Structure formats: structure tokens, C-alpha cells
């Protein structure tokens, strides 16, 4: 995977996914160990280019790079030349000219990371492009599921909520089906993508059939502006009909695993009880995110010096 651009799970084979997950397992031990400074990426420079706000993804990429010994700089669009109207092409070329080895980017525009791969030579890692893709999230979802369930193939995963606007759902669907997982989408029809067709994916307009006997429920964030856009009438009604709470959880398997990419709206798409219950792996996902991002950076950048 050396030099591979990580823009979408669509471009990953099952073997590559397996390699990332196995590497992440080793990285997680390092995070949990005392000395979190490896020499793997010593002498490498990574720029985090974030056009959208982010806490966990940006921090986790930043720490992942630092744990591996790389120099990491984060650029926030609000305090850079981007506010002066510099084009994406020019910003990327400027960063490239400074000699970086990888650019981790988050952008509002679908396809921005793929655009970057055509413009500059450093490895591009997509940390989210609009509603298109968020590959490291999909990989950390898989990693978390495997850590808890001991396997991936044959599991039933329900992804519920705002599928329409979700880059997580669009990445999970490629990553999970490649690993033999059966995927079920559910949400109000206003938040489901029309014409979505994908082998191994079933779409439901009610939450109950989707989570029935599910091994995993991945609860997506509901952005409050979706209500203003008229996609659902009230947060109260959403929570009642589509929210994941204790009652609804009884439909799933007893040992169902709860995921959420964060940040959560408690009492809307997920209840506090569910978030903090023993079946919730939401907190683990954060640490696993660092491990998976370390694995991605190591596999794409480590020339084995």
C-alpha cells in the first residue's frame, strides 16, 4: 500500500482492508503501552488540511502521525490563505512545494480528495469529503466490530439515520460488503438516498425491520439543520419514531454492538442510556480511530528507513 491514496473504500480490496485491520491491532497495543513514539515515520511530514470543523478526526490523525514519529502540521481553513480566496488547486500545490509526504484533507465538496490526487504528488488521505466518503471512519468501524465480535463475515449491521447526507454510510457500505457483512440501511424516506442500489445492502423505511436480529447498529448523526430543511417535522417525533433507545434495542440481538461516528445528539438519534450501556462501543471507536489512522499512515508512508 506504499504510496496509495486513501480517498474512498471503493478503491480498497478485501486484502488491503485486512492488512489495515491487522496493522491497526499492533498499533492499538502501542497506544496502550507507555512509550508512544515510534520511529516509523521519522523524517516524514504530514499536513492536516481541514476545510470543515472537526475534533476527533483531526486530532486523531494528528496524534497518529506524531505517535509514528512524523512531523504533523494542521491547517485550519479559517486562519489560512483559503479565506483570501485561494483555490483548492493552488493551496494543494503550495503545501506540496513545502515538501510534505502526505496531506490529510477534509472538505465540504464531494470529490475534493480525488481532485487532490490529480493535482499533487503527496499521498492524499481523505478525512471526509462532503457526503461522499470517509474511509478511515469505515475502517475504524470495521476494526471496532472485529475487536468486539471476533469476526466480520456473516454479521448483520444496521446503519440508521441520515443515510442521504452521510459519507460514513457511503464508506461503510463498500468496506462492510467487501468483508462479507450484510448491511441494512434505515431511516425516514426523506433521509434515504433515492435510487440507491448496492449488492448486499437492503433499504428499510422503518427502523424496526432493519435492527431486527442485528449484530451491530451504527447510529448516524442527525444534523439539526435537516429539520429546518423540512426533512422531518421535529426532533421530538424523530426521536420517538427513529431514535435508538432501550425499547427499540430489544429487537436486536442480545449482544448487539452500538456504534456512532460522533458527535452525538443525545435524546435525538440515540438515547443517553444506549450511549453509555455496556453494549456501546462508541468510546472504543475513538481510540480505535487513532490505531486505524496510524495503520493507514504507516502502510502508505513508511518506506522502512
Amino acid at each position, binding site marked *: 500500500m506504499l504510496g496509495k491514496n486513501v480517498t474512498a473504500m471503493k478503491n480498497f480490496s478485501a486484502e488491503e482492508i485486512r492488512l489495515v485491520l491487522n496493522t491497526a491491532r499492533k498499533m492499538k497495543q502501542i497506544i496502550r503501552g507507555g512509550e508512544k513514539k515510534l520511529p516509523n515515520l521519522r523524517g516524514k511530514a504530514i499536513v492536516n488540511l481541514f476545510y470543515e470543523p472537526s475534533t476527533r478526526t483531526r486530532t486523531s490523525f494528528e496524534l497518529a502521525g506524531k505517535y509514528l514519529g512524523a512531523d504533523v502540521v494542521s491547517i485550519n481553513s479559517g486562519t489560512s490563505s483559503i479565506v483570501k480566496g485561494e483555490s483548492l488547486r493552488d493551496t494543494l500545490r503550495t503545501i506540496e512545494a513545502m515538501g510534505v509526504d502526505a496531506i490529510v484533507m477534509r472538505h465540504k465538496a464531494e470529490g475534493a480528495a*480525488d481532485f487532490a490526487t490529480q493535482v499533487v504528488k503527496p499521498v492524499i488521505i481523505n478525512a471526509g469529503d462532503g457526503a461522499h466518503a470517509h474511509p478511515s471512519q469505515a475502517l475504524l468501524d470495521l476494526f471496532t466490530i472485529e475487536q468486539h465480535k471476533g469476526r466480520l463475515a456473516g454479521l448483520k449491521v444496521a446503519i440508521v439515520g441520515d443515510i442521504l447526507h452521510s459519507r460514513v454510510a457511503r464508506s461503510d457500505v463498500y468496506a462492510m460488503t467487501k468483508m462479507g457483512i450484510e448491511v441494512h440501511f434505515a431511516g425516514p424516506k426523506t433521509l434515504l438516498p433515492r435510487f440507491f442500489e448496492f449488492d448486499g445492502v437492503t433499504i428499510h423505511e422503518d427502523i424496526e425491520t432493519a435492527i431486527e436480529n442485528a449484530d451491530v447498529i451504527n447510529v448516524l448523526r442527525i444534523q439539526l439543520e435537516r429539520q429546518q430543511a423540512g426533512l422531518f417535522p421535529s426532533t421530538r417525533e424523530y426521536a420517538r419514531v427513529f431514535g435508538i433507545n432501550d425499547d427499540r434495542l430489544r429487537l436486536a440481538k442480545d449482544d448487539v454492538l452500538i456504534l456512532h461516528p460522533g458527535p452525538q445528539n443525545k435524546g435525538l438519534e440515540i438515547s443517553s442510556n444506549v450511549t453509555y450501556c455496556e453494549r456501546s462501543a462508541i468510546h472504543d471507536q475513538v481510540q480505535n480511530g487513532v490505531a486505524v489512522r496510524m495503520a493507514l499512515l504507516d502502510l502508505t508512508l513508511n518506506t522502512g528507513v
Partner: protein
Amino acid sequence: MINQTWQIRRREANISSTLLIRGGRVIDPANNFDGAADVLVIDGKIAAVKPDIKFSADYEYNAAGKIVTPGLIDMHVHFREPGQEAKEDFLSGAKAAVAGGFTTVATMPNTSPVVDNAALVRSMVKRAEEVGLINIKIIGAVTKGQQGQELAEMRDMIAAGAVAFSDDGHFDDNAKIFLNALDYLHDTGKLIVCHEEETSLVKGGVMNEGKRSALLGLKGRPTVAEDIAVARDVLLAEYTGGRVHIAHISSARAVEIVRDAKKRGIKVTAEVTPQHLTMTEDLVNPTDASTKINPPLRTQKDCDACLAGLLDGTIDALVTDHSPHAVEEKDREYIYAPSGFPGLETSVGILFTELYHKGKIDLKTLISKMTAEPAKIFGLDAGTLSIDAPADITIIDPEFVWTVDAKNFYTKGSHSPFVGRELKGRAVATIVRGNLMKLNQ
């Protein structure tokens, strides 16, 4: 590759001169003519169309193996004047038209400021005369500022030379204003060219709503937005007796609605572009904004329906919707790039390659949709090789093989989804009012 030494002469038509086009296959749908003939031009007018003309002309053009047609007409271009000259201006646009074989175009009013009053129409008519390379007709706005709130002074604009009206670029949501516009124009015979996408359904959309947008996560512009708009405007045309012209139709269902409306005798006409006939949403790649247009590229089913509509007369005219933008505007994120690409220089090549050479359309129908029919719809003194008609003539080499390269474009626009395509068929000479505008052999 093509030798880029085109001579574009700016000369007025009334200079006495004679031109004889020898040995071509003349296709003149307005006169129901298709056969071997010579075409004689005297003083900027057609003097004779018949085999073996004996005449010693100032200039002879050997058209053996080529197709000689009335000058092509494109009733839907954006030449961006006034105010958006970084994208295109009348001169660059006119050169692109000459290069593509077009002798008459009509410019859309969505400029800056909007062409919504007689003073602007007059100045644009004057500007067209100054440029002089081709016939540039002016389409005025239906509403002030194209805002859809108040009627623009359309009768003043007619007096100043406007040939039709359009709020192209967007749909007029206010049905009452649109109905008023149809009533107000009723006795003038002028038509309204309608951009048919219901606004609330396409807000934020950048491509067709379909399988591909669902996977890419890009916001969609559904066909139903077009279907609703076409249905409303057809019903208002029926109710008022006014004339509605459906711009760049792209949805299969919309084609059906127009077909049905024509059967009922409603005064509706329609146009389609080469891109909506030959390209689908599958070509949309969010790293390249070339494919971003409104209405968007649809599906094969829609392309097929548009072609069927073109063949059975539901769709009357072919247009390019030539919509150039500055390079830096298109060279950016898909969702931020403006919609539209230049089409004048690729239209003949695409239509010949994808439709004629694939046996999907006969030449007479194809040429008719680019000459006689648009001339009739818009009431233009063009689109025919009748004796004494203005000598606007296009010579097409149907076998000319070339590759689309933006470096060779005369338009200021660069991003076209046709770039890189090898095409067969091209306009090799464009004659405007008897002047051979381009020598390209």
C-alpha cells in the same frame, strides 16, 4: 490534426462579389432539396442552386465530397456580454460559431446586467453588427432582472430588435407572472424560451438525481423537476394560447408531455442539445466539473427518448446551449464550479459521429433541426438556400476525422466533456452573407 490557419475576414456583405460552391451535395430542408448541385452567391445572396452552373465567379470553392447546407442556426448560446467577458464576448463567441459552422446564433440575456430593457437590446444589436462575423440575435429577459417578479418591457425590446424572450438559467416559479408574460406577448407572436427545472426541487443540486448521485453523495436535480415545469408551461400555453419553447429538454417524461401537447395543438416547441442526446450521468466524475450543466446529464433512457422525440418531430431544433466559463471558474470543486460548457465548436462533430454515422438519424432531418426549423420557430430570415435568401452557408465534411482539443477552441471556455474525443465530421467552411469566413482545408 487540423491545420489551424483559419482566415476570418471582417467584411460587409454588400461589397459586390461572387462565389461559386462547386460539386457538393446540397441539403436544403427548407426547400425539400437533397442532391448534387452547385451554389452560386452574388452580392451576399443566393443566386442559383442547380447542377453544373456555368459562371466565372470571383472565387470558387470545391465542395466535392462535402455537404452544403444553409448556414447552421443555434438559438441558445451564452456570449456573456455585457459584464462577463472573462467567460466569453461577442467576438470570441462569434469566432467559435464560425469555427463550428454556425452563421446565426441567439444570445441569452442572463448577463450582468441582465438584458431586460430596450437600451441594452439596442446596444447588443449594435455590438453584434460591430463584430460582424456572424448574425447574432438578441433574446431579452421575460422579467426585470430575470427575477420573476415584474414583467420586463418586452414590447420595447421587440422594437429594439429582440427575437424572443427567456429567463434562461432558471425557472419562473411565479405562475401568474409567467401567464401574464404569455398573454402580454400573445399578439406579437414572440415566444418564451423556458428553462424547465422547478426551483425548490433542484436547489443545491449539481447532477442528475439517480443511481450515480446516490453513490457519489452529490446532490441531485431530479427529472421530475423538469417534468413538472414542462407540464405547467404547456398547460399555461394551452390556457393562454401563447407560445412556449422548451429549452434544452432532457427528461424522457418531459418529451412525452411535449408530444402529447403537440397532439392537442398547443403552441409548444422544443430544443435539445448534443450532450443531452449522447451523454449520461455515468460520465459525472466529481474531480472534473466539465460535465456540470443544467439541466444535468441524465440516463440512457432519457437520451433515447430525446432522440425519439427529435425523429418524430416532438423536438423541433438542435441547440448547443454554448455556456463557456473562465478556466479558473471550472477548475475547481464540482459543487462550486458554475454550470455549463462551450458547445459551438463540437456540435457538428458530435452529432455526425454519434447520430449520423451510427445510423440513428438521416442527414435531412439532422440539418433541418439546425436550419429550417429553428428559423421557422424564431421567424428568422435564415436557414434556407432559396433564391435571394441571405447567402449564409455551411460546408460540412462528413468524413473529416479530428480530435477535440481545448487548445484549438476559439471560445474562451475550456472545460468540455467532449475534450479528447475523436470525432468524424466537421464544418470546414462557414459563409456569412456571401463571405467565406473560414478556409480550412
